[in-house]
């Protein structure tokens, strides 16, 4: 059984609903981001990823964005060269999941300025930080685009400030002779 069986985890299976994971991958099937909201071993994750990527890549362009896979519902959408793919459970609303995907893409776009796949490759940790400001435990934590971006900005600033303070302390050491922009 792949994924975590929904009815195992909850005492009442009626209206079970949670996002189990989100995957981003390229048209060649290379994984660019993976966020898991259920506990699975590395081996299981790899297997799921491999199979799901194959399944989604086999879909034709005009097909609908939803498919049944194992006992999950898969919602996916392609943006340029990246596939955004979410696995939700039986009672979840597929259409709102599409909106969640779209919101995430908008956030990335705003942050990176016309985001493209390379941005996500070279700044993958930032993509994760943004995702973690938008979703928490598989649920949307902030429904305002502005607030998410503001929080990221502040956190980034904090990171810079702290780093600069720290580096000042190391001034003079050979290790840190480089210039900082």
């Amino acid at each position, binding site marked *: 059984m792949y994924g975590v069986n929904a009815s195992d985890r909850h005492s009442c299976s009626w209206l079970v609903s949670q996002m189990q994971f989100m995957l981003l991958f390229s048209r060649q099937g290379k994984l660019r981001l993976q966020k898991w909201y259920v506990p699975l071993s590395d081996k299981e994750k790899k297997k799921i990823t491999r199979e799901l990527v194959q399944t989604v890549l086999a879909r034709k362009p005009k097909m*609908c964005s939803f498919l049944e896979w194992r006992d999950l519902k898969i919602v996916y959408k392609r943006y340029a060269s990246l596939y955004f793919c979410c696995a939700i459970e039986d009672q979840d609303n597929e259409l*709102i999941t599409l909106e969640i995907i779209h919101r995430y893409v908008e956030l990335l776009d705003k942050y990176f300025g016309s985001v493209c796949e390379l941005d996500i490759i070279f700044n993958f940790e930032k993509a994760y930080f943004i995702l973690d400001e938008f979703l928490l*435990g598989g649920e949307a934590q902030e429904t305002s685009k502005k607030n998410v971006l503001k929080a990221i900005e502040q956190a980034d600033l904090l*990171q810079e400030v702290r780093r600069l303070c720290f580096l000042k302390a190391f001034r003079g050491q050979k*290790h840190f002779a480089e210039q900082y922009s």
Partner: protein
Amino acid sequence: MSPSVRLQEMIRVIRSARTQGEERGIIQRECADIRAQFRQGDNGERSHSLAKLLYVHMLGYPAHFGQMECVRLIASPRYNEKRIGYLGAMMLLDEKQDASLLITNSIKNDLSHSSQYVQSLALCTLACMGSAEMCRDLAPEIERLLRASNSYIKKKATLCAVHIIRKVPELAELFTPSARTLLSEKNHGVLHGAVVLITELCKRNPDTLDQFRKTVPELVQIMKGLVTSSYSPEHNVAGISDPFLQVRILRLLRILGHNNDTASDAMNDLLAQVATNTDSSKTAGSAVLYETVLTIMDINSESGLRVLAVNILGRFLLNNDRNIRYISMTSLQKIVQTDHNAVQRHRGTIVDCLKDQDTSVKRRALELSLALVSAVNIRSMMKELLIFLSFCPPELRSQTASGIFNAAERYHQSFVLHIYLDVHLSQAGGDVRDETVPNLIQLITTASELHCYTVHKLYRALVKDIAQQSLVQVACWCIGEYGDLLLKGECEEIEPLQVTEDDVLDALETVLQSHMSSPATRGFALTATMKLSTRITDNVDRIRSIVSIYGSCIDLELQQRAVEYNALFKKYDHMRAAVLERMPVMDKNSPGYTNGDTPGEIKEPDTSKPKPVEAGLLSEPASQVCDLLDLLGGTDTPLQPSPAPTSTPTTTSSADLLDLLGGLETPHSSTEMQKHCCVYVHVVPTVSVYEKNGLSLKIQYDKQTETEVTVSLIASNSTQNDITSFTLQAAVPKSVQLQMKAPSGNVIPAHGLGQVTQTVLLNNPNKASLPCFRFVQLSFLLNLSALFMHKLDYTFIPPTGQP
């Protein structure tokens, strides 16, 4: 240089690798570097190293040596190190790893950190990968944060609480009080989290659910505010104000209103308002409408509201967006039982969706179509489904086939008949066996809604060709019984054909006069002609004259009938109508099939993926399918509960189904089943020993001397596949020696293309006992896969012996 550059440099180098081997080499070097960095301890480089490691991990390479580093970095006072450390924890650690427990303390400390961004890191990590133990440890902290913090932290703490409850349901009580107060928050993030939390609490505990029902008015207010509010740019998505929050509130309302009249009443107006006012031109609006429809259907809503909901779904069904159509069918599936008629109205569109390119849509359309099959539409639906079966993608085939058979079970008699008439008659030379005539007639009488269709179909078959005696008999019988329906001219699902009384009588007379017709057939035709005298109006005189002609027929049976019918016309005319009335529905008595016996064990090795549905398919409606096979003049074997295909190879079940329906044109010789008691026979030159599953085994008596008897075993195969590994075990009395020579071949070719002969010598030197032998067991491989084994009990005695 900003720290990311080192990471980005590494990424660039890795991507420039031209081969997998080159990439592996680079990765190995980098990992060695990273390990060295980790060993060096605190030098400001650790976060970069971990980031590099996380990238390597994402490529699929092992990164477990970074786990402890994550723990260390999380404990660091520096924000950038914490940030990457927590990310690393979420990627490399999960609750199954022991190392995850080590971060519990750090998380606890960070939950009370002065910086909300540090708190946020801790909350995020806990909600993502917190194990049950960690959750238990930290639950009080989370509860505190739920109550007393800013909205930024509150919204995260709320979702963290959701995770805790999912992991440790007993802790639900801890969060119930605070959840209630959170509903009065204005911040959308917190509100959204609160609604999710309350939903989770209500799902797990019916008492809590009761408690939270009191919040329905409050939730309704919030929704109203969202729906009617003026444009708020912050939360607006395509004209909908915060669709995420709306959807969550609607879902909570669904749970609260389910099975509860008061709550359902309280939300009625709101739902109507949302359903009418929401603009569904974009996905956001459709998402809200979709959730609304689901809620309406799941609570005790007024009928007007339900109609509104089904109409919305109907509109969705016609939407250009394939996603919306898919969603609509999913919802219709949920309500097809309760609001059957409403959904029936959309049957046409749903059946059209069977032809959609997308398999997901096809699947939905299939499920819905099967649910919509009813007594009224069974014929047209079966047609559509059968067409679909021939074109559908392989993954849907078994579902389609079993769906069709389930429908058959519900409306079985008519369906079987209909399939027979449609599928089988249209094939050249409908092969109806003598024994099936009464079965078919019985079937026809029970399928009353198909009488018109049946008689039309059979009449046309009769007009085309009268060579097949059984078919002609059934046709005559039908025309006699249902002639009035035939004369009416029109019938559903068949092109109208004007049939005059003369046409009908011509057809019957042709049968009567044809030299091809057997006496029994002519009897049928005569009776049918007589019956028509009460069902037609103009040509009764013609009937009278036909009947009187046959009063002097040479055939005794016909003569008797004609004389009696004449009497009906003359002396007993007042009784004629009553005598020739429509026959009542005949009860099916004991199976008219000759298949009474079980043929011993039929073992079949498990071929690749035998679908359990196939087995059910073949075994469940066994009696109906037996009817079918019987009608079609199929194999001799009744379908056993074990999944043994008869003469078809084990392919997909649609092939089975279509084969069952019409592929069984294999000619069979003698049809009687062997009885399984000892059969002592006086030997005729060639006697049949075994006649089953397409395999035919005969014994030919060659010659006999005083001490020796020679017979030949002749095996032939009328199935579509070769039979191999044919073995026969025989037993002989002690004093008789059995010698079986080499057979003429190892493979018995299919389609009766060849025979295999084997000479058997019975040596009886003592002349004391009977030179007989007894067949004990027979086994063979059909199509190299299906193993058939039969216990036999057939004793062969040469002519001089006595039983």
